[in-house]
């Protein structure tokens, strides 16, 4: 494998600026990697011509000394983002053939910063899943294996294709979206960095909606600094999203000072989950020790409502999804299954177009919003959500960031946890609370299980305090000195 695909975004920027290599060389190396990595099923569309043409333009700009923030950097885009003229299907059959006539704000921002699109990445259908096994385009294979085994593992989800592509060095970074953990959990499963910004930091315009009060775009990268660079380009106010916040985007990379001496890190007792593997407990304790050694103050805190976050999420998110997904009717775009009248056409189209998990969530959402059950389920969940957000507000009076594991277990085999939806939902037990409260959070690769799979540690910060989040994550990253990587496709297993 080419050394160019092993670079960080920061190193690639330096190499491009110094003309050590060209954007075209960088892109061609990644195109070769994507081709070699097709067995992972991480990409559902390849846009190589687009990337090559963009690379030549980037080289012209770089030669003129006019390179922008991400000039010539090859990225991948989750299939949930609308990209003009390129399939945008949220990996659902119901959006078969959909190529939007417009570009999402987040991807438009990336292209305005000079980044290049290698293709669209696989994901759980409509981002509903935690293992990338609900995709209409088939499962994604995690580039990692258990030591001595060849059984294919899930990459996590829903941004599973993005996480696998970044981990396998098919691209330098990728966009993801996070509704309850869909960036952070796959990042942990694939041994990379995944960051969800504060709700309202990135525009949702042109993102295919799942649960609008929770959905946020964010970066998946191999380092914390790269996440800061990507978010810098992605974030910003957008009048076309009414929940987009109009406040300046700070220089995130500049916040990586390497010092946490002035920070207080909270460790919530309630994240100690029954049945959690001892090695995850041990890694969490390592995280505490690393912060103490770096000079931070670490204190025990309580987030009493934590255990209610997941059931709250599984009312709120399906309720919003049942409303958002009402637009798929076989009339304006995507799949249509004919019927004798419009009602029959809608019902047949939606039965054929939505997969099992999506249908289940639409039904649950419709039920909890229906007359007679709204107060008992939906209103109740919204009230508990208020209390969960208050838990964090109280904690942030005395701490600057909260440290937890990212997920209660490492990557599992494709096909596992499929029989019981609640077992699958538990993937997001540690990531969902921050989603409900709209807080920025990041997963940093921090260690390996005994059988060689990556584990992540998770930091949560105050609203719009991404600078502190990145600063603490940078220190965690340095202390953990993870350094492990899966073999790139085509590379010898022994590497």
């Amino acid at each position, binding site marked *: 494998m080419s050394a160019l695909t092993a670079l960080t975004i920061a190193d690639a920027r330096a190499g491009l600026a110094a003309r050590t290599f060209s954007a075209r060389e960088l892109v061609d190396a990644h195109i070769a990697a994507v081709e070699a990595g097709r067995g992972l099923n991480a990409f559902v569309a390849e846009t190589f011509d687009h990337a090559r043409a963009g690379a030549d333009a980037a080289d012209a700009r770089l030669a003129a000394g006019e390179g922008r923030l991400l000039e010539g950097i090859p990225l991948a885009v989750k299939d949930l983002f609308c990209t003009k003229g390129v399939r945008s299907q949220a990996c659902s059959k119901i959006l078969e*053939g*959909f*190529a*939007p*006539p*417009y570009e999402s704000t987040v991807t438009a921002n990336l292209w305005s910063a000079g980044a290049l699109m290698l293709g669209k990445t696989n994901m759980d259908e409509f981002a509903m899943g935690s293992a990338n096994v609900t995709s209409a385009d088939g499962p994604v294979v995690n580039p990692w294996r258990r030591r001595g085994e060849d059984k294919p593992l899930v990459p996590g989800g829903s941004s599973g294709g993005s996480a696998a592509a970044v981990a396998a060095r098919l691209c330098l970074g990728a966009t993801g979206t996070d509704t309850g953990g869909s960036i952070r959990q796959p990042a942990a499963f694939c041994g990379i960095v995944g960051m969800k910004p*504060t*709700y*309202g930091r990135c525009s949702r315009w042109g993102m295919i909606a799942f649960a609008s*009060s*929770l959905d946020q775009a964010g970066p998946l990268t191999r380092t914390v600094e790269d996440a800061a660079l990507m978010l810098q380009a992605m974030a910003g106010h957008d*009048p076309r999203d*009414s*929940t987009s916040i*109009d406040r300046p985007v700070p220089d995130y990379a500049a916040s990586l000072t390497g010092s946490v001496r002035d920070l207080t890190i909270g460790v919530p007792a309630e994240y100690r989950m029954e049945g959690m593997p001892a090695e995850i407990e041990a890694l969490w304790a390592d995280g505490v020790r690393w912060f103490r050694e770096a000079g931070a103050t670490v204190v025990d805190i309580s987030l009493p409502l934590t255990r*209610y976050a997941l*059931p*709250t999420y*599984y*009312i709120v998110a399906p309720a919003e999804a*049942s409303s958002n997904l*009402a637009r798929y009717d076989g*009339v*304006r*775009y*995507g799949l*249509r299954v*004919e019927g*004798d*009248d*419009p*009602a029959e*056409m*809608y*019902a*047949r189209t*939606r*039965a054929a177009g*939505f997969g099992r998990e999506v249908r*289940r969530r*639409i*039904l*649950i959402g*419709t*039920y909890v919003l229906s007359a007679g*059950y709204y107060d008992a*389920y939906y209103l*109740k*969940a*919204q*009230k*508990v*959500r*208020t*209390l969960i957000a208050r838990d964090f507000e109280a904690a942030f009076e005395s701490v600057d960031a909260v440290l937890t594991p990212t997920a209660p277990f490492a990557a599992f085999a494709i096909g596992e946890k499929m029989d019981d*939806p*609640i077992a699958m939902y538990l993937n997001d037990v540690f990531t969902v609370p921050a989603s*409900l*409260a*709209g807080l920025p959070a990041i997963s940093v690769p921090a260690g390996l299980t005994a059988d060689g799979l990556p584990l992540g540690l998770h930091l949560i910060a105050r609203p719009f305090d991404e600078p502190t989040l990145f600063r603490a994550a940078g220190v965690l990253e340095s202390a953990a000195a993870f350094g492990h990587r899966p073999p790139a496709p085509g590379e010898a297993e022994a590497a």
Partner: protein
Amino acid sequence: MSIDRDTVLRIARLSRIAMEEDALAPMADELNGILAWVEQLDEVDTEGVEPMTGAIAAALPQREDSAEDGASTDDLLANAPDADDGFFVVPRVVE
């Protein structure tokens, strides 16, 4: 509260999702499993608590009610399963 097959049929109709007869009972079981699990929220005292409707406390912005850069009719119809003469085509609604 428990869901039976008739309830599944009712919410499937509300959701405009066609369901086969033999899929109703298994779906009722799955939904009951999820509902039994979410009902642990009943343990939480929410007396006097305001419901949270969004992740951020910000007033919705307002703007002039004026036309912006809408897509063209051709662009909008390009992805339609069936379109004719500038319109979406659907099955006959009235005889």
